[in-house]
């Protein structure tokens, strides 16, 4: 694996070039990843708190049209929705975010392939940044990741001293991308970045995902689900800020008497109406069942089906929860 070094100043120049080349540049803000116009505003801080929302909306938008239609008396014509083919560079993504595409790729490409997602991912460059933030909700190390994990990054930044970053070239896509900007990069010194990485305090491993998997298989019926269900308020905050939750809804929206669009919108399994049949029957009628589905889907079903834990350990869902439901704590208690 190749490694380069880039100075702080050049990093800004690099970003300026990205913007100048007409690419979208994203960087973490307080609430979400923001589209950057002026790269000098970017603050790269390994100690920063993760954004409240993940950046999945840039590949799997919260709302996107998938089809346009126009009705006649008897007839209908359809028009395909187009995906913006602009390259998007995400800068300074946390390792717990970067892994999300690996996980999402599975669901969007088993059997049928969702090209709305694929096209966007294809045009996406992920530049990850080592993370030195840790709070009571972080648990990346429990789901097979770490604050220095390069998983899912095309390029990965590690600060090696006051003024320089090591840039690891993780994928060919990344390599190809920085080819055009080679003037900003100098030869790397892997031992320095290694040393920097080793200094990072790793969050404690809170649970063994294999044990959890096993426990979930045996405890579909368990009083704890109702316990947490009674406290949970049934919003979808946890699912919508999650980097890997991927449920969606399809709805038609007319915008005139004859024309309209079919939208693909985020949906959340914690909503009571998610599984509500038109007849009034609801297989998951109480919140306990819905919360159980959430945990099972993340730590059991998805593992069984796609061999990935549907969780990056970013802790966003817990951090944002209005009633302080801590997924780490709940999953950690999924043992005998």
């Amino acid at each position, binding site marked *: 694996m190749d490694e380069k070094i880039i100075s702080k100043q050049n990093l800004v120049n690099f970003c300026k070039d990205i913007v100048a080349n007409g690419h979208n540049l994203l960087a973490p803000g307080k609430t979400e990843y923001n589209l950057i116009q002026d790269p000098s505003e970017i603050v790269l801080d390994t100690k920063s708190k993760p954004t409240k929302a993940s950046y999945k909306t840039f590949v799997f938008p919260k*709302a*996107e*049209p998938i089809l*346009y239609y*126009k009705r*006649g*008396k*008897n*007839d209908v*014509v359809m*028009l395909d*929705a187009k995906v913006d083919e602009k390259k998007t560079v995400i800068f300074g993504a946390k390792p717990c975010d970067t892994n999300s595409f690996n996980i999402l790729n599975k669901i969007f490409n088993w059997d049928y392939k969702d090209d709305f997602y694929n096209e966007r991912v294809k045009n996406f460059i992920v530049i990850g940044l080592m993370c030195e933030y840790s709070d009571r909700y972080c648990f990346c190390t429990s789901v097979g990741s770490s604050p220095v994990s390069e998983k899912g990054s095309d390029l990965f930044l590690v600060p090696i001293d006051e003024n320089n970053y090591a840039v690891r070239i993780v994928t060919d896509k990344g390599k190809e991308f920085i080819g055009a900007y080679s003037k900003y990069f100098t030869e790397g010194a892997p031992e320095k970045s290694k040393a920097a990485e080793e200094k990072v305090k790793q969050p404690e491993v809170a649970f063994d995902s294999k044990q959890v998997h096993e426990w979930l298989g045996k405890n579909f019926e368990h009083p704890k689900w109702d316990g947490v269900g009674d406290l949970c308020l049934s919003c979808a905050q946890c699912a919508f800020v999650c980097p890997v939750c991927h449920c969606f809804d399809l709805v038609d929206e007319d*915008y*005139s*008497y*004859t*024309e309209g*669009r079919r*939208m693909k919108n985020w949906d959340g399994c914690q909503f009571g109406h998610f599984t509500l049949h038109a007849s009034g029957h609801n297989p998951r009628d109480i919140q306990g069942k819905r919360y159980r589905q959430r945990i099972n889907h993340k730590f059991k079903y998805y593992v069984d089906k796609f061999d990935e834990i549907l969780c990056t350990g970013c802790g966003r869902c817990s951090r944002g929860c209005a009633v302080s439901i801590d997924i780490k704590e709940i999953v950690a208690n999924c043992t005998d």
Partner: protein
Amino acid sequence: MSDKNWEPKIVAFVCNWCTYTGADLAGTSRLKYPTNVKLIRVMCSGGIDPVFILKAFERGADGILVSGCHPNDCHYNAGNFHARRRWTFFDELLEYLGVEKGRLQFSWVSASEGKKFVDVVSKVVNDVKEMGPFKSYDELNSEFMTKFPDMPEIDKNMIIKEEEAV
């Protein structure tokens, strides 16, 4: 569309007993008002939901009139009193959110006030004409909208356009 030819789209939500009948009277009296306004009849002004207003804006209405019986004259005794409270809030809210006052107007028009109906409608139309198209809401509406290219292969049935039908 050039501003010169632009004609506002006005929707009026009216109660069955007073304003609708008042509008009938305007007709019987052969009074004239602009064609921009289309009436949607409900039983009582108390039955008009603010979401109706949003829906109408979503469908490109440039101005909206809500009208019912005068206070104390409600066919259902009190529907319009409840409506009055409701609209006080909704009007404040929309204005606060940046919808100009004249976009949504309210009136009491009784069954015998054909002339007043005409005056009210004309005022709404004039106010909205002065303000021009409802650009703020158009911005909301046009997100994710697409223009269908002229598609010659489409059956003529396709197009629901009055002109072509004739």
